[in-house]
């Protein structure tokens, strides 16, 4: 088909469309919805008193803040990247927070190891951590995928990767409410494995779900 014919055909089949809200607005609506959903099990099932006690420790407070910031930044960046004219540099937004998160977790793990010697290698409830990460992360990723699909992103891989990083951060933050002890080396390994599995699953499903949409 020649270009003039294509233009005539497109112009003849262009019903009114509903404009997308700005990506920042969409990101905050999504984050609020997720916060509202996540608040229910946190309030009902977690021990907030213990959590508050742990969060008052400076290193733990930094870790929690960095984890939450990684999640929020990843989600905001993914919504921005789903729009054609936004800079690809948005993809870097979660990176500094993720580095702080990794550093503070690593520091906590090292301190546990130093203080508790052999107990620092213990497994505690690592399998529970993995399950919580999956239970929280997978529905969250599904919701994010549904929201991002509306924009029909031109770069589905980049959007999926950044979005998956955001979901991994948020899932790790929620996990902290059900994790009333410092991480051991084995715990850290289980968390890392859980996050990597979550990241891989979300990334793959998001790529499949977003690819070919635009």
């Amino acid at each position, binding site marked *: 088909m020649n270009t003039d014919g294509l*233009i005539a055909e*497109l112009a003849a089949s*262009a019903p009114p469309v509903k*404009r*997308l809200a700005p990506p920042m607005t969409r990101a905050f609506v999504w984050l609020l919805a997720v916060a509202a959903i996540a608040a229910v099990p946190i309030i009902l099932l977690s021990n907030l008193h213990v959590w508050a006690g742990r969060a008052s420790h400076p290193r733990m407070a930094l870790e929690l803040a960095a984890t939450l910031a990684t999640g929020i930044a990843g989600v905001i960046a993914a919504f921005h990247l789903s729009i054609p004219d936004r800079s690809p540099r948005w993809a870097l937004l979660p990176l500094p927070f993720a580095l702080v998160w990794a550093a503070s977790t690593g520091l906590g793990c090292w301190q546990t190891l130093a203080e508790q010697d052999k107990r620092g290698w213990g497994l505690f409830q690592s399998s529970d951590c993995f399950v919580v990460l999956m239970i929280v992360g997978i529905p969250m990723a599904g919701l994010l995928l549904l929201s991002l699909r509306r924009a*029909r992103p*031109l*770069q589905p891989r980049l959007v999926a990767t950044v979005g998956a990083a955001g979901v991994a951060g948020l899932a790790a933050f929620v996990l902290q409410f059900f994790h009333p002890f410092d991480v051991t080396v084995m715990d850290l390994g289980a968390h890392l494995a859980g996050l990597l599995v979550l990241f891989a699953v979300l990334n793959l499903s998001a790529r499949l779900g977003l690819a070919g949409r*635009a």
Partner: protein
Amino acid sequence: MNGVEQDRQWSGWMAKAQDGDNAAYAQLLRGILPFLRVLARRRCRDPDRCEDIVQDVLLTLHRVRHTYDPARPFTPWLAAICDRRSIDALRKRVRQASYETDNARAYETFADPASNKEVDAGDAAQALAALVAQLPSAQREALELVKVKEMSLLEASQASGQSVGGLKINVHRALKALRLRVGASE
């Protein structure tokens, strides 16, 4: 019209198109064509491929037109789509080139020479017909009557008005001339 005014005009048309104004949409798509062709040519030298990219950009614009925010400039939004589609086209070409070999002859004939008899025979017949057409008319007529239509010399003489001896000489000269020309063309 400068760039700012043009952007404002395109943005206005796009906003109307989002509201369902098909005439404004057609104006917009026609208006952005030269801009898209310039952008596509920066990434691609082949005019046909450039036009493929332009059409791909138009289709993408149509699918994602709900993502344009009229409060923002239109040109960067459009250029980002064009950039992305140009890169996708380039990647696709590189990917295809990595596992496909372009051999023009492969499309013309079969790989097995024995399978090309019909194709080659058609070519040879055309070449021979062209050589015969170049012969003097008396030689051509003698050749066609005696060798192609397989008439006897007497029949050919009656049909053409040439003497039997003249026909023999003309057929001989025609064949000799054809042999020479076929040899020269090979």
